[in-house]
Structures are given as C-alpha cells and as structure tokens.
C-alpha cells in the first residue's frame, strides 16, 4: 500500500475522536436551522452576486463551509495527540520522512473536510435546494474552494499546534481563532455591506473567499470577483502551507 494511504488511514483510525467529529457536524446545523430561520423572518431577501437569496439560504451556504474550519482544527488535534502520546517521535523513527508525515495529516484533514461538508450539505439540502443553480463548472469551483480552505485551516492549525506547548493552550487558542475567522467573514453577513474596518478584516480572511465562492457556485451567482477571491485564497493557502512546513521542521524532538 502507498505510504500516504497507510499514514492517512492510521491518522483517521487512531486520532479521530468520533464524539468530536459528531459535534463538529452538529454545530453548523444549529446555525442553519436555528439562527437561519430565527432571523429569516426579519431579514428580507437580498442580492448576492447575481442571485437573490433568502437569509436561511445565505446562512446555510456559509454554515456548510464552517466544516472547513472544523476539519482544519482536526489537523492540529491529530498532531497534538501524536505529540502527547509519543507517537510523533515513534512515526518519525519509522520508514517515513517528516514531509510524508505532515502531508498525511493534511490529506486526512482534506478527506474529513470533504466528507463533513458533503454531509452537512445533504442535511441542509431542504434549505438550500429551492434556490440551487449548479453547473459542472460551479461544482468544480466549489471543490477547489473547499480544498483550498481546508488546506489553509489545516496548515494553520498545524502551525499553531507546533508553536504552542500544551494541548490545553492549543484548544483555547484554536477556539478563539475559530471565532475570529468565523465572525470576521461572510458566513453570517455580506462583507461588502459591513463597516469599513470590518470589511477590510473580512477581506483578509480566507474563510470569506471559501464561503463566497462556495455560495456563488451553489446559487449560480459567479462573478469575476469570485475568481479574484479564488486566486487570493490559493495564495493564502500556499503561504500558510509553507509556514506550517517551516514550523514543523523546527519541532524539537
């Protein structure tokens, strides 16, 4: 079996906490079905790109991309479990390179991200389904945005997990970062209508680009700006990937 397949399988079997994954799936559903419908009565339909959306539809698309952040956090957790339980050094003393090990965590995270997004999407389908306008090209862009978003947040979680000295600190810092990324993004509101400083911060956030492209791909509202967003997302993901590899190489064993 291929070395990556072996390491990814191990990551998924050994380090995946089923209860955590369950709650990570439940979490976006609360936004979709509680917040979405709760606020839907007071927020009128509005235009996003070339599409007119209800607030529940708008929020449901954003909530699906939340799974991208959740999966990213899993990458850091996988690395922390291995470090805490002595398996990090054990694996590195096996027939693998550091690059293979770190890539296997990212690949496992990607699998989680795609599977979790698909599941949340299916559950949210009654909300999203009425306005969907999906083309093969739109599906491709959705796949690319989820891929890049997962790479960014996965490698971000790896970088902070390397930098921090305890798993407890990692949990606190990653939860805090999670909320910053979540609320300073276009998940809950259109960034273009936010006040200037928030708008600026929102447009630095890769979750904004992941969500915008995902949403546009679902509702047929793709604009040239979405392609620019995809380019920025790719650049940010590449930069974070390089940073995490650099940080990982400096882990003291």
């Amino acid at each position: 079996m291929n070395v990556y397949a072996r390491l990814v399988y191990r990551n998924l079997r050994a380090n995946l906490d089923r209860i955590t994954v369950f709650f990570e799936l439940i979490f976006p559903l609360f936004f979709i079905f509680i917040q979405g419908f709760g606020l839907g009565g007071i927020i009128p339909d509005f235009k996003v790109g070339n599409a007119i959306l209800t607030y529940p539809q708008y929020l449901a698309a954003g909530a699906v991309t939340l799974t991208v952040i959740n999966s990213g956090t899993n990458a850091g957790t996988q690395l922390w479990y291995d470090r805490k339980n002595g398996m990090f050094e054990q694996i590195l003393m096996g027939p693998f390179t550091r690059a293979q090990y770190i890539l296997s965590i990212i690949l496992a995270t990607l699998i989680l991200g795609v599977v979790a997004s698909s599941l949340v999407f299916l559950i949210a389908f009654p909300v999203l389904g009425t306005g969907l306008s999906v083309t093969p090209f739109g599906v491709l862009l959705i796949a690319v945005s989820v891929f890049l978003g997962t790479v960014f947040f996965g490698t971000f979680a790896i970088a902070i997990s390397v930098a921090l000295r305890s798993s407890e600190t990692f949990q606190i810092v990653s939860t805090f970062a999670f909320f910053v990324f979540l609320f300073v993004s276009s998940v809950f509101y259109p960034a273009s209508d936010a006040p200037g400083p928030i708008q600026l911060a929102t447009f630095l956030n890769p979750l904004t680009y992941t969500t915008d492209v995902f949403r546009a791909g679902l509702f047929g509202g793709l604009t040239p700006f979405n392609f620019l967003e995809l380019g920025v997302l790719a650049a940010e993901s590449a930069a974070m990937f390089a940073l995490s590899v650099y940080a990982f190489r400096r882990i003291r064993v």
Partner: protein
Amino acid sequence: MADELAVEVNDLAKRFGDKSAVDGISFEMKRSEVFGFLGPNGAGKTTTIKMLTTLLQPTSGRAAVLGHDVRTEGKKIRERIGVVQQQDSFDQGLRTEASMDIYGMVWDVPSGVRRRRTEELIERFAMQEFRKTGSLDLSAGQRRRLQVAREFVHDMDLLFLDEPTVGLDAIVRRNVLDYLKERVKQGLSIFFTTHILEEAEYLCDRIAVINQGKIIAIDTPQNLKRRFGTRKAVEFRLLEGTSEPLVQALKASGEVSDVSQDESGGYKVTTSKPESVIPEIYRAADRLGLSVSSIYIAETTLEDAFISLVNEKGAPR
C-alpha cells in the same frame, strides 16, 4: 569489516546551545550483539539513541547504523530498525489488538503476516486479557507491554530499546528479556539501555558506560565487574542472633568500609579485602563470646561496579 557492524560511532557529539549532551563518543557494536548502554540520569543515553535513530542530527562526528550514515541515509536506516522509546507511545483511539495491527500496516507488513504475528505476540506477552481494551484504559505496565510487543510486528535488523521494562513486574520483565534473547539467537541486534543493572547483566554481551556525555568504559559485564567491582561484601550470621558490640568492633577496623544488617538478622560487611576481614570477624566474635553460624564472600554485582566506575570517573550531574 563494516558489514559486520550494526553501529559504528566516531567522535559523535551533540550540543544544545552551550550545553553538551554527548561529548565525542566512539564505539562499535557488532551484528547479533546485545549492546548495553548504561549511565546515570542525564548522561546522554537517550540523546545518543535519538542520533542513531536519525531523530536528531549530530552536531559533529560520524555515526553509521547498519552501514548507513545517520546524516545522509536516514530513511535507509529507519527502514531496518525498530525503536522502543523511553517515553510511552500509543494510539489513543485504538484497542490493543488494533494498535498492533495498524502499527504493522503502517510498516507495510502484509495483512496475513500482521494477523499471525499479532496473535503470536499477544500470547507470548500474555496480553489476552486486555487485547480488546482501549489504549487509554490500559495500566502503565500493560501499555508498556503493548509498546514492546508492537515493535515485533514488523521486521528489523536492529532494535533500540530505551529502558523498555520500566513499569513491568518481575515475571513479565523476565518474559520480555527471554523473548529478546530468543530474537537475538535468530540474528537480531539490540542496543539496550536500562537502569536495572541485573537486566543488563542478564542480557548484554557488552556494555558501554556513559557519564556526562563521555564513554568511560566498554567491556563485557564480567570484565566490568572484575575491573571496577573493587568493593566486595562478606555476609555472615551469628548463632546468638545480633550483637551491636560486634558491629562497633568491625566498624573500627581499617579494612571495613561499612557494616549493615538485613531484616532477617544477617550482617553484610563491605570491604576491599574480604580475605583479611573474615579472620577478623571470627576473632571479634570470639572476644565477645559469640559464634559465627555461616559466612561467605558475596559476588560483586554489576551495580557495585557501575557505582564505583561512575563515582571514580566523574560524579553524575
């Protein structure tokens, strides 16, 4: 000649900032040999193992493992070694049986071979009662047993064991050591560190003693005892039980380093000249109207030699 060596180390050093953890050590370990690597805490044992297993880059010097350079051929080395670390290592989401199976899978051992070896090892290491128990629910000793057994699911030519029996009871420990001996007879080489010196004596063909980052002796256990076991012990019993005046009389003798008494009333006299001390014990007992019921010279242990060696050539940090 190089093909006969499992490990070849020349002037190897590792520094962390201004602190020297390993300071220019050199030694050779033959294939199918059990090579003990002993030293007090912080002597440099684990750092040396980390360099030989390619986890740490040396600061200077050269080391080859199974003929491959640790600096440039790390993967070739790692493909042919096994390591049981000093610290615990376990997959927290897996049960004992699955831990062994997935560890073998990671090493690309075919599934049929993995299943067979897992069964054999579970039986050999007496792990049946916790084969379905999750790693987090295992006791420290059970987890340690799993950690050692797991390493034998994959093939290797050289096994690094860094204090592998910590937390194991005496019966399990002997079982593990006997299994290691069997594997050595089949051609496995073992690089072994421990603080339990009886284990080293039982298992090792040769022993290197490291202290403050430097190797201070390399020899067979027998030769180390002969060369460095300067203090011997004379053990005796009295028909009358115990006698404090006799203890005081012996302690006053210039040839005696120490006199101690065990729980059953036997005396242990530490000395470098047991042949002179034995007549003195008889004379002192006579003067006090006591009778010696048994007396013998106790064999020098590796622990005596180790303590003497480390104290003589540099106190532990």
